[in-house]
């Protein structure tokens, strides 16, 4: 059974701090991984995805994520957060061979002034 785990339900940092949001998955086949952001009252918006090549992928608004096959991880990072980054972040895994899209439970990022 494929799973996507976001172990932190909430992460709190100060504005200007760096942040890492964790995502671990269990799946043995060919997949691609992605991150989405959801601001309060809105739908999810795509941030970035990885399927091959350079394990560090750049997304919008200064976000990047690093794929690690050995750790089965795809953690999201930002060097300096802004108050507007306050949102819920979702990690997702999608198989190459079929439609299955598996979502993590989300991590709420709280930015203190």
């Amino acid at each position, binding site marked *: 059974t494929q799973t996507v785990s976001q172990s932190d339900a909430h992460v709190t940092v100060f504005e200007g701090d760096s942040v890492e949001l964790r995502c671990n998955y269990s799946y043995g086949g060919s997949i691609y991984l992605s991150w989405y952001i959801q601001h309060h009252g809105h*739908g999810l918006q795509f941030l970035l995805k990885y399927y091959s090549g350079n394990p560090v992928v750049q997304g919008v608004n200064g976000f990047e994520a690093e794929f690690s096959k050995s750790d089965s991880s795809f953690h999201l990072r930002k060097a300096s957060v802004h108050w507007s980054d306050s949102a819920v972040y979702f990690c997702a895994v999608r198989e190459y061979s079929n439609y299955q899209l598996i979502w993590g439970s989300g991590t709420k990022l709280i930015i203190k002034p």
Partner: protein
Amino acid sequence: DAGVTQTPRHEVAEKGQTIILKCEPVSGHNDLFWYRQTKIQGLELLSYFRSKSLMEDGGAFKDRFKAEMLNSSFSTLKIQPTEPKDSAVYLCASSLEQGAVFFGKGTRLTVV
């Protein structure tokens, strides 16, 4: 550049009513998803279409939830009859195969 459009944004229904939610996917996308989102359950897949063919009908949601896609640019989700536990945000999303998934702003349904 039109994204995914969902209507209405808010819906209030009495228990037992039939409601229909609407979705227009991004033009050219061949995958369409319907999700229900609640704080407790998170994102739950209701239906998935690929090139207008129903690929996934949501298992436990089958009896009162029915999604249709009569053409590639329009989909509906019918809930019949509604129950208070159906109160949630309903999200429609579309994508190209293996591409980024684009979400609508959602419909907030309240069943009283």
